[in-house]
């Protein structure tokens, strides 16, 4: 892992104060979005992906594990939430709990299999596991296969928050995003996060210091999967559908891309990356598969010349970690 972290490592010790300022600025900026006339559907989608990318980043940026199958958490939570809302008619908050719990359970099972190998094998295994899930969801009756689950009711959260109002929904999604983000932020700065970073830097040394590294990795994987699932549950309310696209390998690739563009191992990078990639998809939607080509070009360019990502470069320039 050393090479990957050498490049992405902060140039100076991070200061919590800088991060808090940036966080506050981000929260304010996002809070005034509905007044700007920007298509809220777009921002809500980007927020869900931003949280997803942050969850993914927890694993790669701080745990050194590159999951190429994170779409499975997004999709699983999405299907669970969608099914609960549509078929069982549960309230939105229960739907979110069911979806997130589903992703957590999946994280528990898959982490047990995938952390048995490191590095490149870990990536291949997570990819293969998500493909296994993809085929299961393709055939399982409750997901309605290719058709997906459509027309999902948004409902009333806690009985009084009307999610079918776009502005209300926006603030609920924003609250979910900020909550998830803060949780990740807190985790990174906790003793648990420090041990994770130690494992990323030098696993044998961490083991020799007496840490059961496998347990830390297991826990990080489950936490990352759960939060990715939470993002997937929120997305159901925005898109009002759950489909195979969300479990497909190309989605896993997009998650990696968002984080890579924003900056692996940076705190705000995944958020920036998610907005950049979603905006690009939005504006290039009419150009067919050029979107895929451009994504590929960005991948190549990032790996060859831009390994710190946008936020990483900015942080490097100001000698701050963001």
């Amino acid at each position, binding site marked *: *892992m*050393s*090479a*990957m972290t050498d490049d992405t490592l902060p140039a100076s010790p991070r200061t919590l104060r800088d991060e808090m300022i940036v966080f506050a600025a981000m929260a304010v900026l996002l809070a005034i979005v509905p007044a700007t006339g920007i298509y809220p559907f777009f921002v809500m989608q980007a927020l869900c992906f931003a949280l997803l990318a942050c969850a993914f980043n927890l694993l790669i940026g701080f745990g050194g594990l*590159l999951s*190429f199958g994170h779409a499975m958490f997004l999709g699983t939570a999405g299907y669970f939430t969608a099914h609960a809302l549509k078929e069982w008619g549960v309230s939105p908050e229960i739907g979110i709990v069911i979806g997130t719990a589903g992703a957590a359970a999946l994280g528990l099972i898959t982490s047990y*299999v*995938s952390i*048995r*190998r*490191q*590095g*490149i*094998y870990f*990536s*291949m*295994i997570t*990819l*293969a*596991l998500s*493909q*296994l899930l993809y*085929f*299961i969801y*393709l*055939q399982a009756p409750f997901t309605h296969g290719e058709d997906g689950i459509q027309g999902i009711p948004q409902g009333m959260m806690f009985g009084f928050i009307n999610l079918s109002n776009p502005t209300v929904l926006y603030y609920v999604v924003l609250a979910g995003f900020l909550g998830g983000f803060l949780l990740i932020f807190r985790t990174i700065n906790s003793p648990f996060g420090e041990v994770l970073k130690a494992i990323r830097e030098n696993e044998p040394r961490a083991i020799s210091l007496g840490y059961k590294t496998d347990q830390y990795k297991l826990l990080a994987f489950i936490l990352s999967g759960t939060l990715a699932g939470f993002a997937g549950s929120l997305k159901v309310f925005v898109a009002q559908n759950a489909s195979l696209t969300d479990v497909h*390998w190309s989605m896993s*690739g997009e998650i*990696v891309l968002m984080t*890579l563009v924003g900056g692996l191992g940076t705190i705000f990078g995944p958020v920036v990356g998610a907005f950049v990639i979603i905006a690009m998809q939005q504006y290039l939607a009419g150009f*067919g*598969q*050029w*979107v*895929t*080509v*451009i*994504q*590929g*070009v*960005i*991948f*190549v360019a*990032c*790996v*060859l010349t831009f*390994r710190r990502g946008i936020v990483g470069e900015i942080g490097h320039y100001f000698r701050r970690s963001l």
Partner: protein
Amino acid sequence: MQALYAQLLVGLINGSFYALLSLGLAVIFGMLNIINFAHGALYMMGAFCAYFLLNLLGIGYWWALIIAPIAVGIFGMILERTMLQWLTGLDHLYGLLLTFGIALIVQGLFQNYFGSSGLPYAIPDELRGGMNLGFMFLPIYRGWVVVFSLVVCLATWFLIEKTRLGANLRAATENPTLVRAFGINVPRMITLTYGLGVGLAALAGVLSAPINQVRPLMGADLIIVVFAVVVIGGMGSIMGSIITGFALGVIEGLTKYFYPEASNTVVFVLMVLVLLIKPTGLTGRAA
């Protein structure tokens, strides 16, 4: 019973592609320490190469079997020289990300120009039709694919394990510095190895064109199954990749007969089982 044999044949054909592709992955991994995510895209390019040769230049299947792997192999070597080379010394994961990006570019470009549905590529006249073997109906072309792939796999194994060139190659894998000291041009060897691995993928692409049609995404899903095959087999041994590839194809064929619902997932389930029992893979060494 007839259906069982026929499904076994279908399985063996898939197994041939798994074997050719995982063999290429193993050769490349051994030399470059890169998991070549672009392998599926290069397999697709092999098929398209055959399609262009036929439709633009009127060059048929048999020449395509030779020309396509060479052409795609050269393309691969250019990739290696211009991009992959720069990753030396970086984490292996960057190789995965870079080749994933290359795969997206190649597949996206082909999708732009050819859509996502299949272009037909006819079975060559010599291999058309079928034989009734009594216990099953054997389409001649499919039989040919199995036999030919097996021959190519064994030839590759022979090249790497039994010839001088292969010995140099293996030595360079183990200890590049030492081999360089013997006056062998290691970077060139790396480039050639990548070309060889990619050429095998392109060859598989040509073989598959008459069966699977020529589609921009034909390699995208296949490569993930091949990854699972590689995890199961481990990338340590050439023979291991070949045997695992064919064996998993056969198992998939059996599943199609006994429990078709699981035929898409059986390889992945096996991967999970192997990981639980022997994490390094059946023939693998620790990564």
